[in-house]
């Protein structure tokens, strides 16, 4: 390897090491856990998605009905079903906002006080 190539390769190696080590060079926070959702949060996100899915399905049903792709009878059955699904999702989301179902309660933290209050 020529000297120039060697120097450039060494420089590239150094830059790569800095890039890889950067998360440790940049932050000295003690919290090193992944920003993962706990069970309650995952459930909440699933509920939010289910709500959005039901609302989108309702919108699509309206378009299909307006364009004559679905009979009035089928429309009535499906619209009731989808409204119930959307309403149920919204109700569960609202309830969870007041009382998270399985959020780990801290012994003397605000979560336990709040849970008791609601």
């Amino acid at each position, binding site marked *: 390897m020529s000297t120039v190539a060697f120097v450039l390769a060494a420089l590239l190696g150094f830059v*790569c090491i800095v890039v*890889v*080590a950067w998360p440790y060079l940049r932050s000295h926070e003690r919290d090193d856990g992944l920003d993962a*959702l706990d069970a309650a949060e995952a459930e909440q996100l699933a509920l939010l998605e289910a709500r959005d899915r039901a609302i989108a399905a309702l919108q699509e049903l309206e378009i*299909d009905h307006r364009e004559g*792709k679905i009979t009035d009878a089928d429309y009535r059955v499906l619209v009731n079903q989808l409204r119930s699904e959307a309403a149920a999702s919204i109700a569960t989301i609202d309830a969870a906002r*007041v009382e998270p179902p399985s959020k780990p309660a801290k012994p003397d933290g605000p979560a336990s*006080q709040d*849970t008791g209050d609601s």
Partner: protein
Amino acid sequence: MPGLGRAALALALVLLLYAAVVGGYAAWKGRRRLLESAQSALMAAFGATAVATAVLFLALAFNDFSFRYAWEHTSRDLPVIYRISSLWGGQEGSLLLWMLVLTLTAAAAVAFNRKLVTGVLPWATPIFGAIGAFFAIVLVFVSTPFATQALPPDGLGLNPSLQNAYMAAHPPLLYLGYVGLTVPFVFAMAALVSRRVDERWIVATRRWTLFAWAALGFGILLGAKWAYEEVGWGGWYAWDPVENAALMPWLVATAYLHSVMIQEKKNMLRVWNVILISLTFSLALFGTFLTRSGVLNSIHSFAESSIGSWFLGFIAVVTLGSTVLIVSRLPSLRARAKLESMLSREAAFLYNNLFLVALALTVLWGVAWPLVSEAVRGVAVTVGAPYYDFFAIIFGLPIVLLMGIAPFIAWRRSSWRALARQVAAPAGVAVVAGVLLAIGGAASSVPALVGYTFSAFVLAAIVSEFARGTKARHTNGRSWASAFTGLVGRNRRRYGGYIVHASIVLLLIGAAGVGAFSSSKLVQLAPGDDVSVKGYTLTYLGVEQGHTQNATEVRALLAVSRGGNDKGTISAGRNRYFAEDQTSNEIGLRTDWLRGEDLFVIADRFDPDGTVFVQVIVNPLVNLIWLAGIVFVLGSLITLWPDAREQRRIAERLEALATFRSGPAGRIADRQVAPTTR
């Protein structure tokens, strides 16, 4: 500086192994900074691969023949554009391009999806690292592009058939497609490992998948255009194994793009979708294996190939690994929702999936059977076009029919009566078109007539969908133009999809035109002789000779007339390339856009007595195939274009989640503030 190239590749290998091993450990133990470090390693691997690629690129561009790869694939006389495209003209360069696109895609996919799939993303990093490490190992230890030699005076040049503008664009697009399809595969596997098997990974990778699928589809069509103009047999697709290698993953990816919509909307088909994306990725690898292992020449050249067994081993690992993972996660993959009716949009998508996968597997069997036969029985067999044509018609026509029917079927459930009312007008258009075409002579080919009738049905259905949607918005007080743009803008996926469907129909019309109605005549002409084909008369004027930067040209010059009207001249012949010491056929092509047909001339034998063997072909409707490519890109772009409303919805959802996460403290604060605000 081959040493820098080798060092950069070795560094990329180390970084990718780090991303795989350390990233896996960090995901398993939930270590944030270690995972960020592994993700940074993916980005650094891209940087190192880019440096290696730049080194090879400079060697090619500046004729540094001390690089063996540059010597084998370029020459001093080679035009600059082909010196650049020779980067992917050989095995080592192709693999380097694969790795460059892969590391870039991996780094970008990880960077752009940090917020969307928090549970899945940690496992995507090591899987990307492992796939990248495989390519790095092959490039470092098995098939290096940085082998050197004593400096020769000139290079061997580039295969003449690769000296074509379409070939400069075709391989990179295929690699974008193959590599882009790695993203949904990796996220699917990461979702399985992390047991987050909901549709979030699908939403996060949707645009990556669409982009990869569009690039692969457009790349296939550019390859067909290259074959039409460069290979010069008068056709555009020959069911060649190399062509099929790209078609198979595209067909399965098409099925996947349809079936994921059902998972997004109804949370169904989870198992089917991970199977489809695993199959797509395995077929993309199989395609690279086919084109790079030498297995297509013979089993013996495969045995001599340096990378064939490596690829076969990797495909086996990927297939086995994904199968084990899917089976182990079956309980959590089972959906609660069920198909409500066999007459619903989701059911129609399911039927389309079955036909697409059946077609892909049929093509796979046609490609694999000669290899299996030679390996097991020692007998080399070929599977010809009739086999593929038969199954393309059997499975392709129902797919086309479904493209026309499915938009009229509602999600969840529909009724035969509603469907009959919807399809009446397009079906009427199709019947009228079919009858007129039959009277016009199209009945000489029943498959073509059926294809055209189905095409008329689908086009009428698409027009009807656009017209109905626009009219509905127009009645709400918008202008026609605003109603139309609003319709497409607010439903990009749906209406972009319809435009893609229209492109498939154009392709079908063009393919049927060439396949069923082209005319051809092979004659030996002396100067002054003429030949007539389908209304064209060509008079042989004589031979012309010339030369380009790196070749000599011999051309037969022919005067063209139609119905007594002079249409100019056309020339066809052969090129002789100096450095490569090879000849290539150069066809003559005259496109009549008004008649929608090509006059295609091949002249491949010039005798000393001044005569020439000329084949004249008239290809009707062939240009619709190329037009289909443009429409396909347009439809894909509309589908791909970011939807601000969807971004907003995701942002609102994340905001709502953030509020939920800070909920107890927030509520405490509310309660403390409450008495003072009463």
